């Protein structure tokens, strides 16, 4: 992964023309890496949880029960319950696109592109709103 990311950074050098050729190509390595980190950490956590589930022969909860709230996932992780660790990995996966949007806001702000900062911030607000609505209606 290291050398391919370096290639892109070398290739992305033409973005100095501020979006003349490739719009916002300078941001691409940043976004790509944010996604890679999110996906890798989530996959590693999920695999660890699943291995524990197989080795221990259970999820660490009564049959049919698994944590569905952030608080109970975290307390389950502290207690090393396999299903809680799997769920932590899944939550990290769900949060990866949200993290990517946040990185996008920072990236556009660095390019002083106020229109795109506004657009991306709006998307972030919609995501936060959806999580709040989900809590209320879920």
């Amino acid at each position, binding site marked *: 992964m290291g050398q*391919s*990311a370096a290639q*892109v950074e070398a290739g*992305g050098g033409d973005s100095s023309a501020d*979006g003349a*050729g*490739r*719009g*916002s*190509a300078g941001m*691409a*390595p940043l*976004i*790509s890496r944010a*996604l890679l980190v999110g996906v890798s950490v989530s*996959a590693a956590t*999920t*695999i660890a*949880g699943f291995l524990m*589930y197989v080795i221990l*022969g*259970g*999820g660490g909860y009564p*049959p*049919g*029960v*698994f944590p*569905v*709230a*952030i*608080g*109970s996932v975290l307390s*389950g992780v502290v207690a090393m319950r396999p299903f809680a660790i*799997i769920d932590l*990995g*899944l939550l990290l*996966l*769900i949060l*990866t*696109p*949200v993290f*990517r*949007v946040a990185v*996008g806001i920072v990236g*556009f702000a660095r390019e002083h592109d106020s*229109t*795109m900062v506004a*657009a*991306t911030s709006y*998307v972030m607000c*919609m*995501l936060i*709103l*959806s*999580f709040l*609505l*989900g*809590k209320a*209606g*879920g």
Partner: protein
Amino acid sequence: MLQSAATGTGAPTPSRKARRARTRGGKAIAAQIHQTLVILVFAAAAGIIGSMLGLGGGVIIVPVLTLIFHLPLRDAIGASIVSVIATSSGAAVAYVRDGLSNLRVGMFLEIATTTGAIAGAYLAGVLPTAVLYTVFGLMLAYSAIALLQNRHVELPQLAASHPLAARLKLASTYHDAVLGRDVHYEVANPYGGLGMMGAAGLMSGLLGIGSGLFKVLAMDVFMKLPLKVSTATSNFMIGVTAAASAGVYFARGDIQPTLAVPVALGVLAGALLGTRWMVKFRNRTLRYVFVPILLATAFEMVLRGA
């Protein structure tokens, strides 16, 4: 989520407990591992196809889990949401790095997809779902015709971008590995694109499937982007649309850990392969793969509406 946090774990309803009885005990674990491996293979296939065509793979995951494994639709849709996010994040690592996803187009259009997704979740009880299935199904079928009319087009020839697209600097360049050169493209009809993306979001919020198809169509048919850019940008976007509804599914307990693990990991592995293969295809070939999946989904949706 807060309420269940107080009780420690999600208290399952009796019916839920009953249909999860198969996860019980040590003996069941061997059977579970077998099921996990089989789902892993199907999920990898969904990841390959999804990452190549800009779809979340729900079109494959949902029928596999309900028809082959006889799992409840709720669990299948929960797994499909995980599949969409895994395809999107996994594929976008490569597509964004290689400049195939158009970040500005994607992030601009996400305004409409997230708004549509929230509106859809709100309207879920109000709008007649059967009618929506029919309307969206017919829209997809109609789009298949538009896509077929363009079947000989390798790259759209658009002289200049729409004024709004120009102001937002949406035009870009990607390196086409098959043509062996950098391809510059302009961007048409951003308002039409926003409208279609709103519909895609609405569909995701209301029905939970097919929003990737709408995204690809919005960019290919309306905005005249090269098909590879459309599918790569759709892949980049679908994770955000799905994340907007994933919290709800998670809190409701629709995302089963033992099901989500093979789906997420299989799809990630598939997406890794799919992104490598996709760049080697011609836009025209990709179109031929896309149309049957589009027609099958359209048919399925019209059937559900009837």
